[in-house]
């Protein structure tokens, strides 16, 4: 990693730009491209594919939960006798799909889509930069991600199958699983770790690149407080990745050593597995793994949510035609949030037998962190107040984001208290909590982003009707999935039961029917994505043409470029004159005053109109 930074850092820009980009062969222009927009689209496309794969795994799991002993329709036989005898999903396969669902969604789906795709495409445009600071590093970070994805996905086809012990991959179970194979290297558990090392390297390179770009490549006049909120969120996200991922890398390296070199970092003395004493020195600590994992794990959840909040913060002012309410407080809130997110991690570990003093400390910081979260959501809510809202499709997703994310965040508060968490830990309540944040939260935010920036990427709008057909069923199904989970969780349903709790019928009976409700909602949610997928491809060619470079009448800099933006982005160096969300300014003829228009060139409103505006 280090070599690539030090060698490619300084020289990357100049040579890549010296050549005329259009003269490049196809594979340099579209495959091994160093242009941030192409890389962004590559990230986006790959991430959407992984999201679909992760979704598929989940649908299979939901069948097992709702109808544990019956054959899965359509795909049952394709999964193979070994994993699904007679088409009935085996507990082993359920575990495998569960672990990989989480891993794929978090590390291969959402982060690449939010940070990799939107971050790459939008950030340089919004700050007026010709590209990322280190374009070749940017390319390297995409290909590391791709490699990580290939390793992860490839592990499904090994004899051992893919990783099986949850997306958190806790040791000692993770270390002692799959050790019976001839080569411990070629097992899912090992490749998971290897894949993580690639993904972490990718994120680290990306983070270095983003932060440098934002610090050093802002155009003239783009002062810190004129940055669009999206850029702020990217900056904070970059820092989270930069500083939180290395400890996970340590955990992955240590676990790799445990598996391959026979060390005992996470294995205590006298450990037995499968009735046999392990041939290890012992002396390690499973708690060490959890600390290192969650040191990343909690900042990671903010990596998942911040880009989505920020996308929503772009879409809302654009559609309420009002400045973002409390821009400055949002900026400070997001910084505090990033800071605090590093010192709350052990709220995931209340049940590990940590000391009470430690529990209390983390309980306190966890409650504290909800303050900046609430500031963000409240500012966005107030931004809606008194606006003449245009309910475009991106705005629909953005407005739905607010209550959904709010619900997810509020359900986190009870979890923050260790006494309550004793009851709720590892139940469906936790699953419900974080899915409310990431599914109807983050994913809706990202959908908003796709619908919003699509015209900049392609010059065409996505279809409005199909957008509605996508949005409303999705909203209903999302709640159909996750609301029952909260109830089941409070009733004590364990999060990892492959049969959805039927084994414990005596206590779970009253709530078992919800398994079917959830599962059907999940499958219907899949159906609801069909209009979206169709819309995405169809609109590239046949969507309604955007009539200008700024079809949403937006104020931020990405809308000043030609469509789609050429290599180098801006024909002439942009200069920034004002704050990012100057909508409906008194005295202006139009209801938006873009950042890049000098004061002299703003069309003045007719005098009487201006007066009327000033009065209201």
């Amino acid at each position: 990693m280090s070599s690539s930074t030090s060698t490619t850092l300084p020289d990357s820009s100049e040579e890549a730009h010296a050549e005329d980009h259009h003269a490049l062969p196809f594979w340099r222009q579209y495959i091994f491209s160093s242009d941030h927009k192409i890389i962004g689209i590559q990230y986006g496309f790959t991430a959407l594919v992984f999201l679909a794969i992760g979704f598929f795994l989940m649908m299979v799991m939901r069948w097992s939960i709702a109808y544990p002993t019956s054959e899965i329709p359509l795909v049952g036989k394709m999964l193979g006798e070994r994993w699904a005898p007679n088409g009935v999903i085996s507990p082993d396969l359920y575990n495998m799909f569960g672990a990989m669902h989480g891993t794929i969604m978090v590390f291969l789906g959402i982060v690449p889509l939010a940070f990799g795709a939107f971050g790459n495409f939008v950030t340089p445009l919004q700050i007026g930069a010709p590209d990322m600071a280190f374009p070749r590093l940017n390319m390297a970070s995409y290909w590391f991600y791709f490699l990580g994805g290939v390793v992860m996905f490839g592990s499904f086809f090994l004899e051992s199958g893919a990783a099986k012990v949850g997306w958190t991959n806790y040791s000692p179970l993770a270390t002692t699983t799959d050790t019976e194979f001839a080569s411990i290297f070629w097992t899912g558990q090992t490749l998971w770790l290897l894949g993580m090392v690639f993904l972490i390297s990718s994120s680290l390179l990306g983070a270095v690149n983003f932060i440098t770009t934002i610090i050093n490549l802002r155009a003239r006049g783009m002062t810190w407080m004129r940055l669009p909120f999206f850029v702020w969120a990217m900056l904070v996200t970059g820092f989270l990745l930069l500083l939180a991922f290395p400890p996970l890398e340590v955990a992955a390296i240590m676990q790799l050593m445990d598996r391959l070199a026979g060390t005992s970092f996470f294995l205590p003395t006298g450990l037995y597995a499968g009735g046999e004493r392990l041939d290890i020195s012992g002396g390690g600590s499973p708690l060490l793994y959890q600390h290192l994992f969650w040191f990343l794990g909690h900042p990671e959840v903010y990596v998942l949510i911040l880009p989505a909040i920020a996308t929503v913060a772009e879409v809302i002012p654009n559609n309420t035609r009002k400045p973002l309410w409390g821009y400055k407080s949002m900026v400070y809130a997001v910084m505090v949030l990033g800071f605090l997110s590093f010192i709350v991690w052990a709220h995931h570990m209340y049940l590990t037998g940590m000391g009470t003093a430690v529990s209390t400390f983390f309980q306190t910081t966890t409650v504290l962190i909800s303050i900046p979260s609430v500031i963000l959501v409240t500012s966005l809510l107030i931004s809606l107040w008194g606006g003449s809202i245009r309910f475009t499709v991106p705005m629909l997703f953005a407005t739905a984001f607010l209550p959904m994310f709010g619900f997810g965040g509020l359900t986190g508060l009870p979890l923050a208290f260790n006494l309550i968490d004793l009851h709720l830990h590892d139940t469906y309540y936790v699953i419900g909590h974080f899915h409310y944040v990431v599914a109807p939260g983050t994913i809706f935010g990202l959908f908003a982003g796709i619908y919003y920036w699509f015209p900049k990427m392609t010059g065409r709008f996505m279809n409005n009707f199909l957008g509605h057909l996508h949005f409303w069923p999705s909203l209903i199904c999302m709640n159909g999935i996750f609301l029952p989970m909260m109830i089941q969780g409070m009733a004590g349903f364990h999060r990892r039961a492959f049969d959805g709790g039927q084994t414990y019928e005596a206590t779970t009976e009253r709530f078992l029917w919800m398994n079917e409700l959830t599962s059907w909602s999940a499958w219907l949610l899949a159906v609801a994505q069909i209009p979206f997928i169709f819309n995405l491809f169809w609109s590239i060619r046949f969507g309604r043409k955007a009539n200008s470079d700024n079809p949403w009448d937006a104020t931020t800099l990405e809308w000043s470029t030609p469509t789609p933006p050429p290599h180098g982005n801006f024909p002439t160096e942009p200069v920034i004159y004002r704050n990012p969300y100057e909508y409906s300014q008194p005295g202006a003829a139009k209801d938006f005053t873009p950042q890049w228009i000098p004061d002299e060139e703003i069309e003045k409103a007719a005098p009487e109109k201006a007066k009327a505006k000033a009065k209201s």
Partner: protein
Amino acid sequence: MEIPYTVTARPDTGLWNAKIGIWLFLASEVMLFGGLFSGYVFLRLGVTEGIDNPWPTRQLIVWPGFVNTIVLIASSVFVVFAWAELKMRNFARYQFWMRLVVLCALVFLGLKSYEYYGKFTHHGMKFEDDSVVEGVLQQDRIEFTATELSLSPGKGGLEFLKYLKDGTAPVFKTADGEEVRLTSSWIKNLRKSSGGVDAPAAVVLKPAAPLEFSFNPKKVQAYTGEELTFRDATVFKGALKDDKIYFEVHDIDLRMVEDDAGAMVFSYLGDARKDAYLEHRDAELKKAEEDGRAADPYDTDLMHIHPESHGAAHGETHGNETGGEGAADGHGYPVIEVERDHKKFLSNHGPAYNTYYAIYFTLTGLHGLHVLIGALVLTYFLFFQKKLYQKNPEHLANRVEVGGLFWHFVDLVWIFLFPIMYLM
């Protein structure tokens, strides 16, 4: 538009891009090594007396680490010299200093490899009662003469052929008298014809003459005097020849044993050595008392003895311990033959030996990787950047500064590694 500030600094931040980039990267490196150091402290504090292995202190030979510290410090000085010469536009002298830097890196890596080699050729074995011997492993094999083997077509493979004593591919006969040569294509056909992974029936094969195997014990699932199961479930019938562990003892360590005199090692080393050990121990304890210091359980002088320097003369001991002349080697250390089920854990002083060596190898290995990569980058700057220098000397100076920052960081990590691994 071109990407700005690749060589010159941006006025308001005062920095060019790569300078920010490298510092951010170093920040993440701080967290990376921080995680490992934190792991070190965690593991060391987590040692529970009486349960876990005691944390070894001052076990490494100090001089290679010491020399390496000096070498890295020197290279750090040379790299700033190189950079300064570039700033003064003195290419030849830049190259001179940079050569020295790369040379230092090579010396460092050479010494490190020498140290690693020493660890990998030194062994330790823990007995069931937690007494420990350290020294050199002579042999750890399960030798077995097979007259028949049955292969389970589902899981079984041909891995066991690796453990044949003479490498010639033997000929087998099946129960039906059919002659087979074991090849991977034969096994594939067998698998196909017998119904895949879950095939129940094993195929019984008889070799023309009894086969001598010398198995790696890790690959053996279970064995008795007449039967041995390989880990892919292939079963061998025949006779066990030898399963003892031959170990050349240099030191013993009884910190985990409550009753020194009854320690299992002494049933192998013999009474003479036991008495010598106890005498030595008591003398040390007494000396500690006289000096007015607490008997330090970590003190290697107290707890390890060198068998050849205590107790009976060499000639005798060989006879007692090993029951045969040939079992002792030239160093005068006794070689013991240990029953396999008296062994609790056996390993060389590689990462698996205990958590100390685990973190030692992980940390120094990762650090060594950084040295290697840094050296490669600096070598690149040394030999392949003359053109850039002629075109834009400041650009090369910037690059060397970035490479140098990385190099200093690597030095900085070692400055902490040296005391915590070698001295404390």
